[in-house]
């Protein structure tokens, strides 16, 4: 095992300064920078649409309190902390995606390709945001599920039979944020496979 390492690592260490001056043989990912930018654009689109759908979900309905007395009661996303969290997390992701999309596109245009350090930082933040968006999707999905089905054990009644359009907006937003978290997962997989191929070429 030790012998394997001793044979493989010294050339890599010796080549390090040489490679800086002559980059052509370096593997720059083939298709992957284009796929990276495309995925980031998709991520931006899904998060933005999810925010808009969630923010415009307000619905007001006449709720009968007593026979002959009905008052208009609105359902807003601000009423549940989970939905506020979803909007906040998606906003952060959206802003982050704008920045990384521009940086990724710039790296695509420069001939040398994306530097490994930049890719490394992207990877870390993508993984962190994956956690945040997945948690937000889970939170909103959990609350929306109770709203849809209710919970007889705790006496939490379902509200989706009353606020149908609000629930539809919420479900669409949760679905879109699910797609955006899957996109983030794909982005991290892509970066890891690029890094892996770079090391495999040595």
């Amino acid at each position: 095992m030790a012998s394997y390492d001793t044979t493989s690592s010294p050339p890599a260490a010796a080549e390090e300064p040489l490679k800086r001056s002559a980059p052509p043989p370096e593997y720059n990912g083939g298709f992957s920078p284009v796929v990276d930018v495309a995925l980031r654009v998709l991520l931006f689109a899904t998060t933005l649409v999810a925010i808009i759908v969630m923010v415009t979900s307000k619905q007001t309905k006449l709720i009968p309190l007593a026979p002959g007395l009905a008052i208009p009661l609105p359902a807003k996303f601000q009423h549940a902390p989970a939905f506020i969290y979803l909007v906040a997390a998606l906003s952060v992701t959206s802003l982050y995606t704008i920045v990384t999309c521009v940086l990724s596109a710039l790296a695509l245009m420069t001939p040398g390709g994306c530097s490994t350090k930049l890719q490394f930082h992207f990877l870390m933040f993508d993984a962190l945001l994956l956690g945040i968006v997945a948690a937000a999707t889970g939170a909103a999905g959990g609350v929306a599920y109770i709203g849809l089905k209710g919970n007889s054990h705790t006496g939490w009644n379902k509200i989706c039979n009353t606020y149908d359009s609000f629930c539809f907006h919420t479900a669409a937003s949760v679905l879109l944020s699910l797609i955006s978290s899957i996109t983030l997962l794909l982005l991290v997989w892509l970066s890891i496979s690029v890094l892996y191929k770079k090391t495999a070429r040595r």
Partner: protein
Amino acid sequence: METEYKNVEVVNRKSSFKCKDLVLRFLALALTLVAAVVLGVDKQTKTVALTLVPSLPPVDLPVTAKTAQMSAFVYLVIANAIACSYAATSLVLILATRGANKLVSLILIILDLVMVALLFSAIGATGAVGIIGYQGNSHVQWDKVCNVFDKFCHQVAIATFMSFAGSITYLLLIVLAVLTLHKKC
């Protein structure tokens, strides 16, 4: 002579990474196991005074709160069980291949990431439902239940924090693996 010394250092660093990897995986295994067990056995029965008919005095009835009654909690238990069994499998795989197989390590990074997403979504769901149980939601008349089932709620909170620590461990595993890949670049 000098290059040899360098090589030894590189090997040492690599093995220390592997050691950290194993420790983190073991930690993830333990944390997710504890979270799954703590939430899985969570059950509390209390006698609650219920007014069935307004004209009659309230009747004392035993009411039970169980994990299986809330779908989000069931999701957390299942997610933790999956993460726990995956941690055990990956430990066995790493020990069997001694971390030398590159394909296995790539597959492990990819699956680690899936575990992060799974655990975080389960924590989000449990946290959101737990907050409603703790504070209630006056807009939709969902009353809080944690003033009655205090022990049950504490156990849910403990399980959520354990699970959160477990998912952070998985995140650290990814950081470690990517750092190793990055250093080789």
